[in-house]
């Protein structure tokens, strides 16, 4: 497990394993000690003039007196996740654009038809009404739906 700590501080673990090791370090004093020692070794090798400094306990005691911070998780995503997220977003936008285009094209035709329709439609209705009035009048006794007959008749009567 300590080797994993060593790998974590060198950024050589994948996100999932890193998260597991972080949890383990937080819970295990010897791993926590290793985390500190390994960082100290690195600082000493780079000749940091403050290698003797160790404020972990003092800060930890002060933090214990602090109210626990609770912030909403808004931004924490690894670089890979951000790339995948951006790709997914781009794909979603592209898909939405294609769907929208496909939807808009026939809809525009329908609108055009609808806009152009009234004159043709009314002419057709007049033709149908003229033909059907005679038919309904001839067969009104055999028609169950009197309302329909009345409408048809009234339309025919309007002419």
């Amino acid at each position: 497990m300590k080797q994993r700590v060593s790998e974590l501080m060198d950024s050589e673990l994948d996100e999932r394993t890193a998260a597991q090791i972080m949890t383990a370090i937080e819970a295990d004093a010897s791993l926590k000690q290793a985390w500190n020692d390994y960082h100290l070794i690195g600082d000493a090798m780079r000749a940091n003039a403050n290698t003797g400094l160790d404020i972990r306990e003092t800060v930890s005691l002060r933090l214990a007196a602090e109210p626990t911070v609770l912030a909403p998780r808004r931004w924490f995503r690894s670089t890979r996740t951000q790339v995948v997220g951006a790709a997914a977003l781009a794909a979603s936008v592209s898909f939405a654009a294609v769907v929208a285009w496909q939807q808009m094209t026939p809809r525009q035709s329908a609108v055009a038809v609808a806009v152009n329709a009234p004159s043709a439609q009314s002419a057709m209705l007049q033709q149908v009404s003229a033909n059907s009035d005679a038919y309904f009048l001839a067969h009104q006794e055999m028609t169950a739906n009197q309302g329909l007959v009345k409408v048809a008749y009234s339309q025919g009567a309007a002419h």
Partner: protein
Amino acid sequence: MSDRDIDQQLVARAQKGEKRAFDLLVAKYQRRLARLLSRFLRDSADIEDVTQEAFVKAYRSLPAFRGESAFYTWLYRIGINTAKNFLSASSRRPVVHADFEDEDGESFDLASQVPDLNTPESELMNKQIIATVNAAVESLPEDLRTAISLREMDGLSYDEIAKVMDCPIGTVRSRIFRAREAIATELRPLLDTAKNKRW
């Protein structure tokens, strides 16, 4: 996962209430922050106090941290502001001013030289730690010494070290770990002795 991603994960955990995660960030950055502040402050006790204060302020400010910059950049800024406030409150002047550029290329108004102004006790402790680590590194088998040096001194990734040393990456992982453990074994008695001392 990059180093920045690791920091962000630890910050995210701290933001969810895990104070222990923040402890790991303290362990990681305490010396680097102190080194930075030593360019501002003259007294080693002041450096320690301001470093502590900066970490506490950083913890309090965690809800406002949205990861737009690296954690250490953000921490350094808090440290610098804390040092400035400290100097202002105590009517003292900073040691030397100059521009300082961090690892992200962001520049800070800082001292240009690291003053050798530690107390004799802390200076001795620093020297002992560095001497112990150096001696431990020198006594390592050559393959371990090369691996840890390429990692810590040159900042090479495991993959790069594997190519340099012409060995599998798993061997690099093992060598670096074994080197660290060997050095830590030499270092721990010194750290145990120094425990409860201020520096």
